[in-house]
């Protein structure tokens, strides 16, 4: 009844394609640092957490930084509502994630890798530690890896239930033993990260793509997906559909194709990118997922015609009120005000004038908040009120209406 780790047979073009543990590390040590960076640049791999920063640039900057020690951090603080791809990668494909970390450590010149695993995933810890022990036995971790002059080891640190720690500077603060409050940037972690040392923080999925790129080549990777969004993406699909789960799909796929793929019926809305993402109404289901149109970390939540959009929005705003770290005013106060606005609509005690002011407040939060949490938390508020005007303001609720 509890979740046990089991490997399921998955199929996919890139991440879920065949890979043997250690292959990527061997290839990396053969290629050398410059060639690894070159392959990554050719692959056009972008960070899979959602922000989409080019991985080759991040690693190049960390590699170029001069310091006594450097760190590679694997961001496994997967807290975005509706996201569970990292859970699948870490439990079913640890070889990709950990080999990716070793390769990253080699490339940037780090001796230590840290996995920041969210507290909710503590149940995985035992098996992961055993896995790392096996890697040490096979000389894929530790001193003189595969006989080369390269030392690297991985430590797993647990989070303690704070969504904001998925933001890279908040994550570093948490590793240092502080409250998970985001830092001002610059300086960026690539120069001043964990304990003031150069640190590259990478998403689990980004690291998992690296071994494949080294083995099959950057050009091969770039043939998948689209021009600006190369490779494939893991989508965590949940909500009103027959086959929820993690799917590896090429970038550039249309929302309507996803709906068909997972067997969703009477779909009214698709929330792309989790609570901090945007809500797409039926009229826009031919939009594509990728950096050209809707960029996302991969959370897809499907809602059918029976769902009440105000109920959904309220759930999201309650989430942000609770998870805001409270450090900067736009986010701390702004989210509370937006939630109050949603409650006003729920109780029919709103004026359009005030709701429009709240939308303006949302836009202010998008520019004035210190970190990604407050910058993106108004997204559902604005997109649900804009895209589902009819349902929210003109008719009885409880899913009687299809939205715009």
């Amino acid at each position, binding site marked *: *009844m*509890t*979740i046990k780790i089991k490997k399921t047979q998955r199929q996919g073009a890139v991440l879920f394609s065949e890979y043997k543990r250690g292959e990527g590390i061997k290839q990396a040590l053969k290629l050398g640092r410059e060639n690894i960076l070159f392959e990554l640049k050719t692959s056009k791999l972008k960070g899979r957490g959602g922000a989409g920063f080019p991985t080759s640039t991040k690693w190049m900057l960390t590699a170029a930084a001069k310091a006594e020690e450097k760190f590679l951090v694997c961001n496994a603080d*997967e*807290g*975005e*509502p*509706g*996201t*569970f791809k*990292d*859970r699948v990668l870490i439990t079913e494909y640890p070889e990709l994630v950990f080999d990716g970390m070793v390769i990253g450590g080699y490339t940037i010149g780090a001796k230590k890798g840290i996995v920041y695993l*969210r*507290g*909710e*995933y*503590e*149940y995985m810890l035992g098996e992961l530690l055993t896995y790392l022990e096996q890697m040490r036995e096979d000389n894929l971790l530790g001193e003189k890896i595969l006989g080369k002059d390269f030392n690297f080891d991985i430590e797993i*640190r*647990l*989070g*303690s*239930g*704070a*969504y904001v720690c998925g933001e890279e500077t908040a994550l570093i603060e*948490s*590793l*240092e*033993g*502080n*409250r*998970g409050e985001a830092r001002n940037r610059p300086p960026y972690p690539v120069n001043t990260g964990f*304990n003031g040392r150069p640190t590259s923080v990478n998403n689990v999925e980004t690291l998992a793509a690296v071994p494949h790129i080294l083995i099959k080549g950057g050009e091969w990777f770039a043939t998948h997906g689209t021009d600006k969004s190369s490779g494939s993406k893991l989508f*965590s*699909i*949940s*909500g*009103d559909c027959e086959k*929820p*789960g*993690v799917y590896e799909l090429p970038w550039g796929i249309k929302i309507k194709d996803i709906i068909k793929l997972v067997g969703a019926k009477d779909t009214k809305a698709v929330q792309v990118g989790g*609570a901090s993402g945007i809500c797409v109404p039926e009229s826009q289901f031919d939009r594509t997922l990728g950096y050209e149109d809707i960029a996302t970390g991969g959370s897809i*939540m499907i*809602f059918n015609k029976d*769902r009440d959009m105000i109920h*959904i929005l309220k*759930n*999201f705003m309650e*989430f942000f009120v*609770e*998870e805001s*770290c409270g450090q900067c005013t736009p986010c701390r106060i702004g989210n509370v005000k937006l939630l109050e606005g949603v409650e006003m609509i729920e109780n029919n005690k709103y004026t359009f004038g005030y709701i429009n002011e709240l939308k303006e407040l949302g836009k202010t939060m998008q520019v004035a908040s210190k970190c990604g949490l407050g910058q993106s938390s108004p997204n559902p508020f604005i997109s649900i009120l804009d895209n589902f005007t009819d349902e929210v303001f003109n008719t009885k609720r409880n899913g009687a209406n299809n939205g715009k």
Partner: protein
Amino acid sequence: MLVTEKNSLTEEIEELCKEHGNVRSALLPILQAVQKKHKYVSDFAQQEIARMLDIHPVEVYSVVSFYSFLHSEPKGRNIIRLCRTIVCDISGKELVENAISRELGIKFGETTKDKKVTLEYTNCLGMCDQGPAMMINDQIYTQLNPEKAVKILKEIK
């Protein structure tokens, strides 16, 4: 707190500091270990940790109060955290919530009189494809319905 209890807690924290190091970056792992064993981090424990890491006790308290899995007040021996994020919410969370609440005779946010169970909500557990989901201590249970949830409650010691 009895003097003997205090002494054993101090010894425990000394051991943890040996294991994780007397450095600020060891604070979270130390707190997590104390939380796991005692189900909360008492004022005394916070002071001892602060003393050994050579930081102000308020620094320790600020960290304890920030993270939702760390508590400064006593909790039940088992902490049940029910996911309340939207996908679990629309897959029948409310039925499970009511069933658990009825069975234990307490509301969410409360602890049973015998200190066996504390009920809490949590945000997304990353089990949206198998909702509704809940966490009991560090284990996760999925695809719950009222009957299944109550059956799981019975297994708690």
